[in-house]
């Protein structure tokens, strides 16, 4: 294993660190822990490009064919494209734009570095594409996950190629390797600005800093594995947060009407909403709904989004959603999502909660 620079030195210098785990979608052991140390330069186009780079890196780390198209067959291709864009010096700075498409069992993302931004409102024709990269995704690399993982790749593939300074370092670490620095193998709690660049309502930070809450959710999620666990996070009149675990009623609904409820508790949850009223009777206000994904990532799935806002508006305004990834019976990640009225959709809040 080699490091472009000593990560510990960079971490101390820039003060931010992101650890993520790559997992096999079929539920086998996690394969890699990717660690990145980065500075505040990973914004704008660098951040955008970083998302794709991260998909690429995570996919490659998982041994998946992430770029089967002719547009970009290897990491070297991406390097060349970005190098191409970076010159000549008098050219206007390129604009990074995304086109994301999802399919039932995967998706693809095009990142195009273009000569100007597309004016969606006026129906302006596509701007000239300076370079395009298409990345094919497995199901584990959802858009939300890519956003979460995205910032980690800004340093090596973007900051370097676009000449941004300071240049941070990226290290790919085998988490099982005893030679890896201990602080890279030790669980970290994360905080700070999010990869999505959006400030959430703040629940994430409060939750992240509350070990008892996280332990309660994790214990319940692991105990229910391989079925999804679910519950509420409520705030009492004294302001204290509390985790409430609730039964997952999905199998009951599935048995009653498999056509209307085709999923079982293995891949879905339904909870008894009357429990919210009972909490309200106790003076406790609902602030978040949590559930686990078994052998899948901590992303806000299409099913989650459809159930949370079936008519395009949230059924529970102001309530966040916490998704916990449980891989092979162990918690592998958590993410908090809240409604963003700018895009009429749920977005991830901040960086992933550490493990």
């Amino acid at each position, binding site marked *: 294993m080699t490091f472009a620079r000593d990560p510990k030195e960079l971490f101390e210098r820039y003060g931010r660190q992101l650890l993520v785990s790559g997992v096999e979608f079929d539920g086998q052991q996690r394969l890699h822990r990717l660690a990145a140390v980065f500075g505040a330069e990973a914004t704008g186009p660098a951040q955008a490009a970083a998302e794709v780079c991260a998909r690429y890196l995570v996919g490659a780390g998982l041994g998946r064919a992430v770029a089967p198209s002719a547009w970009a067959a290897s990491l070297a291709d991406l390097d060349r494209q970005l190098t191409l864009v970076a010159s000549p010096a008098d050219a206007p700075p390129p604009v990074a734009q995304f086109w994301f498409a*999802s*399919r*039932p*069992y995967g998706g693809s993302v095009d990142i195009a570095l273009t000569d100007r931004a597309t004016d969606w409102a006026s129906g302006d024709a596509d701007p000239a594409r300076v370079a395009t990269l298409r990345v094919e995704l497995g*199901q584990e690399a959802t858009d939300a996950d890519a956003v979460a993982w995205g910032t980690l790749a800004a340093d090596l593939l973007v900051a370097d190629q676009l000449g941004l300074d300071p240049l941070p370092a990226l290290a790919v670490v085998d988490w099982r390797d005893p030679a890896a620095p201990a602080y890279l193998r030790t669980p970290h709690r994360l905080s700070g600005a999010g990869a999505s660049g959006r400030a959430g309502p703040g629940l994430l930070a409060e939750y992240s800093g509350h070990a008892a809450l996280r332990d309660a959710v994790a214990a319940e999620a692991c105990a229910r594995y391989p079925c*999804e666990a*679910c519950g509420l996070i409520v705030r009492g009149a004294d302001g204290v947060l509390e985790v409430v675990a609730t039964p997952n009623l*999905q199998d*009951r*609904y599935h048995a*009653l*009407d498999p056509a*209307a409820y085709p*999923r079982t508790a293995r*891949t*879905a*949850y*339904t*909870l*008894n*909403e*009357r429990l*919210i*009223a009972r909490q309200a009777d106790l003076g406790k206000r609902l602030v978040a*709904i949590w*559930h686990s*994904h*078994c052998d*899948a990532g901590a992303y806000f*799935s*299409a*099913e*989650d989004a*459809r*159930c*949370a806002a*079936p008519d395009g*508006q949230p*059924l*529970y*305004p102001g309530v966040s*959603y916490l998704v916990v990834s449980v891989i092979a019976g162990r918690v592998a990640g958590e993410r908090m999502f809240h409604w963003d009225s700018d895009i009429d959709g749920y977005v991830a809040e901040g960086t992933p909660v550490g493990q």
Partner: protein
Amino acid sequence: MPTIKIPTPLRKFTADKDAVDVAGDTVGAALQALDAAHPGILAKIFDDEGKIRRFINVYAGDEDVRFQDGLKTKVGAGDEIAIIPAIAGGAGAP
């Protein structure tokens, strides 16, 4: 006369009232009475086939009426019917 609890997203039909007393001895009759008093609300509760929408749960007491007698579930004076947006979701692709 049962009381129907109205969820926040549907209170625009009920002049922001969170509970409405209606006549009716079944859940279905009570919901029809609710729509008569507050036209349009039923279209948010029922699908095109007249069934309770997938993302809406109607409780009589502490149980979803789907597990009782559906819209024929009996209700009496003082009983509470709750219309509640479902809380559901799950991993993976649709």
